[in-house]
């Protein structure tokens, strides 16, 4: 008897060290899973940050442009040949360059945007004509990449997009102090462009703004109304059950299916304007409604019944109880839910591809029916572009998008902490 007990205890003791080792190992697995996940996050954000931060600077070249009165006819400033002025100024920097090909290559170091910049300047200040103007103009994107060190000079000439001669010219310009890097205002002020150095996110940001405005204006009132009905009025019947099941299912349906709905209903059936932020907003409304309804219901549920009973007790009608007491108390929670829903809508891409918001749009949209694109779609479009400079700009656009999302989520957290009441 005692012998068997002894052996049981022995067995326990013998196994104990191994079991503790197992315990330790299991715990380590858990911790390393978390650390790995966080490492992924750091890698993701880090690689985008490392790729993108240089896009906030833009290489510029100083040109001494002679605005001669011959080329610039005062009567017809809009159509004058500004390109040739820029070209001549560039060639003036390198009097030793001869030959058509070399000359053409040299003038390509400057962005095609330089002539538009010059045109704008001359048209606003015609008195400049006849003078020599020292002007910083944007460099071409390949030059930009080279100056920022994204193109290594160690590479063989054939495998880089900038040749030895051009590197020599850039070195000369740099030695003469004619190249500088300054803040890339174009990136925040311009619409999309095929030229990376002229492309900006303003068009996409405004498109996102209009789209989200439509989404907010539709989904918040409808979502709150639906939540109020389901929480306060809905009788226990088949219809209510059906609505609840639908809301839960819609919250889990892939977003691209909403895009198909938008394409079939809003574009083909109702023939609304393609690519417009109105249709984009409508599709995102359908997508965010379930989120907002669920959040609003949770927020209504958290208002204690004593408030309701007190209001009803002093003779308020049900509608008065809700509109005077419950809604104001539940509003911060509803707003938090709405902001989180909006943040999700801001990052959404797939359904908008379906309704044609993926077009190349240069103009900044100025209304709900203008063709527009949104920030995530712009990121998608740029990510597809072959130019090396667009990688940098894509990353920068992602940084802007993440910053906006962070701001929205932080607002939601602050709102919740400030107004949340524990009953």
């Amino acid at each position, binding site marked *: 008897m005692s012998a068997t007990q002894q052996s049981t205890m022995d067995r326990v003791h013998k196994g104990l060290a191994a079991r503790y080792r197992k315990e330790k190992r299991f715990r380590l697995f858990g911790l390393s899973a978390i650390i790995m996940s966080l490492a992924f996050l750091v890698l993701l954000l880090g690689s985008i940050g490392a790729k993108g931060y240089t896009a906030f600077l833009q290489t510029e070249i100083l040109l001494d442009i002679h605005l001669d009165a011959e080329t610039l006819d005062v009567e017809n400033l809009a159509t004058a040949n500004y390109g040739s002025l820029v070209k001549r100024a560039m060639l003036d920097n390198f009097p030793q360059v001869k030959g058509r090909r070399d000359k053409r290559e040299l003038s390509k170091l400057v962005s095609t945007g330089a002539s538009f910049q010059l045109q704008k300047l001359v048209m606003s200040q015609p008195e400049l004509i006849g003078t020599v103007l020292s002007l910083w103009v944007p460099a071409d994107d390949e030059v930009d990449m080279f100056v920022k060190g994204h193109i290594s000079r160690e590479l063989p000439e054939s495998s880089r997009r900038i040749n030895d001669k051009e590197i020599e010219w850039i070195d000369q310009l740099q030695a003469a102090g004619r190249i500088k890097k300054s803040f890339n205002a174009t990136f925040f002020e311009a619409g999309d462009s095929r030229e990376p150095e002229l492309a900006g996110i303003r068009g996409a940001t405004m498109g996102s703004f209009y789209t989200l405005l439509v989404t907010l204006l539709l989904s918040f009132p409808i979502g709150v109304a639906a939540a109020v009905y*389901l929480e306060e009025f809905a009788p226990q019947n088949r219809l209510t059950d059906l609505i609840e099941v639908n*809301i839960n299912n819609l919250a889990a349906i*892939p977003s*691209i*299916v909403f895009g*198909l709905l938008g394409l079939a209903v809003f574009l083909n059936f109702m023939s609304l304007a393609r690519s417009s932020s109105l249709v984009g907003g409508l599709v995102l409304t359908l997508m965010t409604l379930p989120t907002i309804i669920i959040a609003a219901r949770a927020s209504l549920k958290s208002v204690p019944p004593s408030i309701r009973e007190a209001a009803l007790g002093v003779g308020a009608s049900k509608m008065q109880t809700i509109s005077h007491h419950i809604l104001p108390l539940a509003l911060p929670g509803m707003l938090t839910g709405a902001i989180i829903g909006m943040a999700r809508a801001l*990052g959404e891409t*797939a359904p908008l591809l379906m309704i044609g918001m993926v077009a190349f749009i240069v103009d900044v949209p100025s209304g709900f029916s203008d063709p527009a694109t949104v920030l995530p779609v712009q990121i998608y479009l740029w990510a597809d572009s072959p130019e090396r400079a667009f990688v940098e700009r*894509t990353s920068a656009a992602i940084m802007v998008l993440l910053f906006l999302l962070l701001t929205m989520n932080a607002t939601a957290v602050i709102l919740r902490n400030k107004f949340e009441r524990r009953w």
Partner: protein
Amino acid sequence: MSPSMLVTVVLALSTLAFWQGKRRAFALSRQASTTRMHSRPGYYGMLTALWCAVPALVIVVAWQSASDPILTRIVMDGVREAKGALSPDQLNLMINDVRNLVSGSIYSQNVDPVLQLAAKRYQSMMHIGNMAMAVLALSTALGTAYYAYSRIKPTLRARNHVEMAVEILLTLCSTIAIFITVGIVLSVLFESIRFFQQVPLTDFLFGLKWSPQMAIRADQAGSSGSFGAIPVLTGTFLISGIAMAIAVPFGLMSAIYLSEYAGPKFRATVKPLLEILAGVPTVVYGFFAALVVAPLIRDIGLSFGLSVSSESALAAGLVMGIMIIPFVSSLSDDVINAVPQSLRDGSYGLGATKSETIKLVILPAALPGIVGSILLAVSRAIGETMIVVMAAGLAANMTVNPLQAVTTVTVQIVTLLVGDQEFDSPKTLAAFALGLLLFIVTLVLNVIALYVVRKYREEYE
């Protein structure tokens, strides 16, 4: 008068009606000192405003949605008389021409005079119709407002009427969820049926070749498109499988650590950080997958002497897995926390270590919930679009080799539908058939998952 202008005028009238109604109610309450008003004056105002705005707006909306089809029909009847019999295609073409003439987007001079006449007729009828509608709407607004105004009496139960109207509005808003579902089903189903009229259902479900090309000429090379969904589905499940192989262990272990081992402070900092992974837009993950992960995997593969496609399923699946980690972990966390403490205490009392308790007691108890959360995660993975669009391939290879490029349902939908499309070719309709498939698969997964989770919760509460 333009419709938006008309709506503004009606709304302005309705505001006016509100003030008039309110004033009259005030006057009545002062004058009739013996009988008290049933409701507060504001409610009388609101009732008058509602009576003013709602009927008029209904008229405006009805005309807006009905005018174009009716007028087109009348105009095209005229055209048909002039032109004789027309095939439906020709008719559609002419309708488009007339539309463009009306909106002024055809500038050429040599337009068919019959069509020009039709466009003119359309324009003049539209003009008359709009005028008539404006007059009708405005007189209705005034008339109904006057009717409501004249009914304001102390005995009128204005508050109840207004509340009834608001309740109807609330009910309508809540039924929108049903309409969205019905809309999704109908729009996808309708186009899919048209697709299945041209491509047999069995070819679609069991076909082994996917190449959605349609011939423009009959003798063109590769003229016959084939629409077998199996390779596309294989690709989808391959990528989702890789994603789940990443997300389930990482997510589950994170959830276990956070709920069983971590202190409150660690939990409070790490949980939001993990949630950030879920908050990053998918297009960002796609960019990351295409630009960082895919080249990395290809280089690693090359150093082992393997040829890895630059659009390998592995890269897309890996990144998708990372995206889904917080999804699995937060859902499993909830489920593990819902396991009653008494089960843990019982296990500790028998001398089990923490990990033994987790493996032998908590996980089996939480299993249905965990399965439910994994199913929800699978449906997320299958429906995920941007990562695969940016990082996975377009060619439908039927393979289970994760180093090769495969395509997915969502990628095909996007590639078939982006850009201008014609809506009678099987190529575009195929996208809707794939959408229907996606909808059904995710719906079934969601329903099962929600059912499993709910059933499990009931057991302990």
